């Protein structure tokens, strides 16, 4: 219980929210809107998994939102040129991987602080995209939306893909040596090095992986609508970091599970539709999200403070 206090408290908060919805607004639990919500959040879940890895490795990546936007627009442009969708998917992931490798090279290779590096790349990619595209939306040809499948199937595909990635990564982190290396590097890079792990390679790898997941998420986002918004992904970094932190991953690295991240994301994702169903004005969404983050860390702070003395 103590070890997984953060995960349990996020799950408890989610349970209370769902219970309140079940009592006061049963209309929330209709299959179709819920599926739409899950589909909308599926790309976010994929990015949040990557973010969790980065944060467990004691780094941070705030450029994911901009990477996401660039990848989405690239995917849209390639699809509009009638490339086969599989090729578009591969290219998008490759582009994301390149962005990730760029961050990784600066952080792991030159030893620069990740928050500043990704701050710089965030601004650079976003402004570069605005410059090149001037905020034009990309129209997608027929047959791209939902991979040409019926909407229902397409939505289920996206949700299942996201869940599959979550489960695979969670198992890898827990049971496979390379997953444990991420924790080792995050909790003490020097000790990890003495144990024969190469911290720089791990850090680089985590950023590359983050980029690849961002590319995949961008593709998952692109096929959801008939057009690509050049401003997509704005605020994605904060949303995913919030989900990761609420889910109990320590920002100081080396601690956290993907199950917690999943719970945290569900909690944050349910807040704004829940507000609508509970007849609270939607303007409160952001404030409540902020308060949730603060509550999550304060609960932890108070608890560990008690333990310390």
């Amino acid at each position, binding site marked *: 219980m103590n070890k997984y206090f953060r995960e349990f408290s996020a799950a408890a908060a989610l349970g209370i929210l769902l219970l309140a919805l079940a009592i006061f607004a049963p209309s929330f639990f209709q299959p179709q809107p819920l599926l739409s919500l899950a589909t909308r959040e599926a790309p976010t879940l994929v990015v949040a998994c990557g973010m969790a890895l980065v944060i467990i490795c004691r780094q941070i990546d705030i450029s994911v939102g901009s990477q996401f936007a660039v990848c989405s627009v690239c995917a849209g442009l390639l699809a509009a040129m009638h490339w086969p969708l599989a090729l578009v998917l591969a290219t998008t992931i490759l582009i994301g991987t390149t962005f990730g490798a760029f961050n990784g090279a600066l952080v792991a290779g030159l030893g*620069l602080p990740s928050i500043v*590096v990704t701050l710089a790349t965030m*601004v650079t990619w976003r402004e570069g995209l605005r*410059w090149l595209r001037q905020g034009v939306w990309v129209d997608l040809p027929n047959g791209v939306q939902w991979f040409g499948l019926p909407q229902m199937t397409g939505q289920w595909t996206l949700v299942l893909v996201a869940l599959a990635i979550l489960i695979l990564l969670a198992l890898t982190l827990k049971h496979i040596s390379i997953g444990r290396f991420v924790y080792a590097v995050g909790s003490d890079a020097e000790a990890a090095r003495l144990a024969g792990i190469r911290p720089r390679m791990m850090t680089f790898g985590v950023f590359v992986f983050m980029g690849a997941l961002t590319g995949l998420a961008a593709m998952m986002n692109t096929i959801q609508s008939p057009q690509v918004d050049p401003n997509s992904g704005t605020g994605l970094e904060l949303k995913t970091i919030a989900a990761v932190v609420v889910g109990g991953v320590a920002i100081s690295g080396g601690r956290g599970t993907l199950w917690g991240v999943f719970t945290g994301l569900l909690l944050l994702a349910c807040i704004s539709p829940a507000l609508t169903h509970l007849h609270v004005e939607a*303007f409160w969404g952001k404030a409540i999200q*902020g308060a949730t983050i603060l509550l999550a860390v*304060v609960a932890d702070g108070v608890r560990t403070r008690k333990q310390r003395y």
Partner: protein
Amino acid sequence: MDKHGFKKILLRHETILFAVLVAEWIFFEVIGRNFGTYDNTCDILRHSCEIGLLALAMTPIILTGGIDLSVASLLGLCAILFGKFWRDAGMPIPLAVACTIGVGALAGGLNATLISWLRLPPLIVTLGTFSLFRGLAEAITRGVDTFTNFPDSFLFLGQDRWLGIPAQAPFFLAAAIFFWLLVHRTTFGRSFRAIGFSPEGARYAGIPVARRVAMVYVLAGIVSAIAAIIYTARLGQAKADAGTGYELFAITAVVLGGTSIFGGVGSIPGTLLGVAAIAVLHSGIAHALLPGEMAGMLTGVLLILALAGSTLPKMISSLRARKAALKIPPQAA
């Protein structure tokens, strides 16, 4: 590293930044239209006041090894509350200003409490308050309400000149002098650096770490409130999205100015130069009729270059030290 060599490196960073600034100025003077005029200089100064204030307040925070992402959100919240106090509560402007600064101090106090008393990581706390403050501003205005029609005597502060300089410049100058004294001429400044190098070490040296850390966040709250008032006076309106993204410019300016994001090293003159470099870049690009997006891109590139430039000598010297320690004999040719 001895004190003298250390000082030299600090000096060098600021000298390089100053050279970049001069180069920027000459470049835009040559290719831009009406760039180097007195009017435009005033304009640059006017537009950099709010970001400059935020960057000044951010410097001691980063010196202690912390960060504050919430300053721009607090700017938005304070702008809205200032409008509320003046229009809806019917307060006279000076009283509304005082109340707004009080709110800023309280909001900074919230950050300070969570960070110094509960010892939570500043990045996460201020990420939470980043959302919270902006969200409150949106909730209070319901996302649409705008406050306008401020009296001319108030707009003078943001839009007019006083003795030939922009009316808000004296406030900025006063803040700059205050922070320079605080960081470079008092024991507070030394304690910020000590905390940034090692909080535990600072505690053993008898520095009240929690109180000092709390102080810099409360100061940032107060300065954000002042920036909010100047922002409102400059634009003549207060909206919930006031100052969106300013926190990134402020952090960029501080880091560009040579302050280490890990804490312990940095200076106020460096921050001022960083603010100037960014402001001149933005204005110059607008005057040279280049696409405005280039300013953001170049800021990012400049930031990476500044960082890489500051670590490369360190890396080379550490490599050299390692080689010397290993005493590798020179290979026979």
